[in-house]
């Protein structure tokens, strides 16, 4: 076991999968000699050559579409969208093509493809280098959407995604890349897709989150513990298909639910989580299902004051937890 950052865990996972399976290749903008703008594929071009670490033209739709084609012709493409904010031009290929090919071909064709997208803010990225996109992709049946919150999961979920027969959108929080460290085993392992995890056990309230926000929830939960309120924290891990069972089980136990995400509020993924609870755990609820999210503005501003104003943080979460506990 060694302590790694998120970005090291993702890099290790990618490298090991490329060494393990020659069908795995990487394509995207600046993934080659530059090693990606965040350095995720640093050194890959040297190790695997320019064709397996393909610098593409600046064209997200064909990056996704060519990945779909290569996947249908026996390869295991891992595409990188330089920022999740730039994946919109590829939404037709991802949502209407990649997601629907197994279904529309009545199971004759499938798309074993992974699309990695750095997402999230708090890094002075402004409107177009800070967005969260999980709600948009999570709504599309046929896509698997994953957001790891720690290095262990990042590596294990990425390996599972690359080995999966269906298309996976793999979202990596930019703010967590170097901030979040953790132990990662040296031997090969995977973390199953579609399973949430209990990041902290508790009996009085359930907080549901993913990515960077999971850590803010854990901080707030420690504060609540000091006041005698034990918050159970659920790490969603796979946005879609959503592991409702784990969430519902926890809420049935605690009777109170708070959902946290960085994405804007209306129609964010918290809505689905909240609605699932309201549907399946209603008789167990002792209070409203609370959402702590980014505000309904187009995206977070560049100016640091306004960026901070946008971002959910432990204080904001703590305040909501206290109100809910007092309900």
């Amino acid at each position: 076991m060694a302590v790694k950052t998120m970005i090291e865990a993702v890099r290790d996972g990618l490298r090991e999968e490329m060494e393990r399976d020659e069908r795995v290749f990487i394509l995207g903008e600046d993934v080659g000699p530059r090693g990606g703008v965040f350095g995720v594929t640093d050194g890959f071009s040297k190790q695997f050559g320019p064709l397996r670490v393909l610098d593409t033209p600046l064209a997200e739709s064909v990056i996704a579409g060519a990945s779909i084609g290569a996947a249908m012709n026996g390869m295991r493409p891992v595409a990188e969208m330089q920022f999740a904010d730039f994946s919109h031009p590829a939404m037709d290929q991802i949502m209407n093509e990649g997601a629907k090919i197994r279904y529309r071909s009545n199971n004759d064709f499938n798309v074993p493809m992974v699309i990695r997208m750095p997402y999230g803010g708090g890094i002075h990225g402004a409107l177009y280098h800070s967005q969260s996109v999980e709600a948009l992709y999570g709504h599309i049946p046929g896509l698997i959407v994953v957001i790891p919150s720690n290095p262990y999961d990042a590596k294990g979920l990425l390996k599972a995604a690359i080995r999966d027969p269906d298309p996976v959108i793999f979202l990596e929080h930019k703010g967590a890349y170097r901030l979040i460290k953790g132990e990662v085993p040296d031997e090969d392992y995977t973390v199953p897709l579609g399973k949430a995890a209990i990041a902290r056990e508790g009996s009085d309230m359930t907080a549901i989150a993913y990515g960077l926000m999971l850590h803010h929830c854990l901080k707030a939960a420690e504060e609540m513990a000091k006041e005698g309120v034990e918050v159970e924290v659920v790490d969603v891990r796979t946005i879609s298909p959503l592991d409702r069972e784990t969430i519902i089980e926890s809420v049935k136990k605690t009777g109170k639910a708070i959902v946290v995400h960085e994405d804007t509020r209306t129609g964010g993924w918290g809505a689905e989580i909240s609605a699932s609870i309201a549907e399946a755990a209603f008789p167990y609820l002792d209070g409203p299902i609370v959402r702590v999210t980014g505000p309904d503005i187009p995206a977070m501003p560049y100016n640091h004051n306004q960026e901070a104003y946008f971002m959910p943080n432990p204080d904001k979460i703590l305040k909501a937890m206290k109100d809910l506990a007092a309900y």
Partner: protein
Amino acid sequence: MATTTKSELGSKVEPTNRKGRASAPKNGRQSLSTQSPTPKHQELGLSKEDLLEMYYYMLLARSLDERMWLLNRQGKAPFVISCQGHEAIQVGVVFALERGKDWFLPYYRDLAMVVTLGMTPREVMLQHFAKKADPDSGGRQMPGHYGYKRLKVVTGSSPVATQLPHATGIALASKMRNSDEVTVVSHGEGATSKGDWHESLNLAGIHKLPVLFLCQNNQYAISVPVPQQVAGESVAARGQGYGMPGVEVDGTDVLAVYEAAKEAAERARKGEGPTLIEAKTYRLTAHSSDDNDRTYRTRDEVELWRAKEPLPKFRQYLLDNGVATEQEIADIKKRIDAEVNDATDWAETQPDPDEADTLKHVYATPEERAQWR
């Protein structure tokens, strides 16, 4: 997923290996209408059997197409979209490639392409009636949305030009594996306006990918004529901007198309990169059974083009060059009529997909996932 047995689906066309063939002469671009000392098909190394097979598929597609319209008008199928006017292009191209080896990404007009690749009349009618055994999608997609894994026909959707990035990726995989398979991706001239068209030609041009971009220019995108669709002189003229030949060819002339496609396939197989072929023809029917083309084009215009359409032209060539007798051609027609009748009657009685199956195949099942390598 097909519940129907192979034999029931009728005879398959066995993949024909044309590698041995002499390559087309660089000079040739002459049309069927003009006479030449040695008949064009001999220059191209095509046998009498080849030509009769070509004619058979052109007429088979046309006959199936006409039958689908009839069934639509009878209220037996909600939708039909046509290949009429495009048969020479589609048959010419398939004959220039290697069935069973090369990849094909057709679009909704490519009925003649898929039947030439081996989709049987019964299978065509299964997809027309959206039956459970429809090999394209088990009745999930609209007619004309082809996809047939065994024939290396890749599943397509409705959004125009989305198949071009797939073709580019398939060819990229071929290049990575040093395979000499070629990928043919087919589309209309309206599709050239899409961003996906541009991004795909650019990527294929940069990496010299083995792709044949086949633009079937039938002069309309539903109601929109070429001058409001394509800036510049032509689609073919854009090829050089992507570092690939842009070849314009008479799409009503099956041999001219064969020749152009043959050259493109050879370039691709030799690793010399992609080719853009613009085959010009005319859409003889309305855009689809949901369209009324009288709102945007005159009957005179349509009649003018009927006179130039591919089938009679090729028929005449076969007669003029002693490739076939009136009798042989009549026999082909008879055989096709029987096949179309059989296919219609048989397919109509086949079962619909089950309601409960509506939820299947969104993701791999746990079993499928366990077996996946």
